[in-house]
């Protein structure tokens, strides 16, 4: 069960329940047990009935009435890390590279 359709299908797995929600909600909308039950149930249906690998089903749920939320993901407007975190990350990467190049890591 997951939300990143392209990554999961690029890998290739036996059975997949895809839900078009923001990453972090692979098994349903928070505090919506009905939605979660349905998605889990779709997974069990697949366990019972799928006949071939790479069987994907998509749950019927939409996160919000429009797709504006998708524009905020991994874009300039909303990067994976904020500027400060990115700086730190880049510093650590540089330090690690240095260690590697001198054979210390």
């Amino acid at each position: 069960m997951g939300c990143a359709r392209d990554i999961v299908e690029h890998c290739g797995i036996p059975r997949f329940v895809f839900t078009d929600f923001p990453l972090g909600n692979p098994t349903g909308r928070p505090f919506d047990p009905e939605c979660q039950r349905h998605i889990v149930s779709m997974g069990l249906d697949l366990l019972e009935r799928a006949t071939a690998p790479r069987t994907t089903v998509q749950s019927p749920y939409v996160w919000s009435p429009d797709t504006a939320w998708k524009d905020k993901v991994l874009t300039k407007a909303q990067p994976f890390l904020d500027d400060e975190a990115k700086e730190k990350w880049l510093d650590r990467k540089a330090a690690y590279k240095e260690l590697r190049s001198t054979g210390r890591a």
Partner: protein
Amino acid sequence: MSAGPVASSRPAIPFAPEDDVPIRYMERTRAYYQALGFAPYRWAHFTDAPFTPLAVPLARARVALITTAAPFQPEAGDQGPRAPYNAGAKFYQVYSAPVDGKLDLRISHVGYDRANTVPEDLDAYFPLTRMQEVVASGRIGGLTPRFHGAPTNRSHRVTMETDAPELLRRCREDRADAVVLVPS
């Protein structure tokens, strides 16, 4: 005078908006890393995928759960629902914990969508309550006594040669008939 091809009429059932498609995470991540000057990440990719039909009726099957969520570690910094990405809260070895124990699983160590969601409900990313309901209803035979945690490291080698075989070993030890993987 026509300026080019036009749709002859509006479809009887209106189409969804053109951009209403699953996010292309690989493309966006690639662009993001490239902008930072890194070599493109290679995602796991197989043209062949395994498939084993369920060997027992679902109502008798023992199901194991595998998660990428991490047990809360008091010393590992902010792991709250609004915590920024916290690599310090990662774990590097497969772990297992009883499904009937007290659970405190967090996902501050992974890149979930912090712009659009707040992980305050465990069952949105680790459906233990929902699975327990399914057991109670008789639809599946039961859960294995333990669930398992899969480390989210960026080494394909470690994932494939160390973590995956260890997860498989534990699922077999628990006599699981099926496994549900839930990446958070």
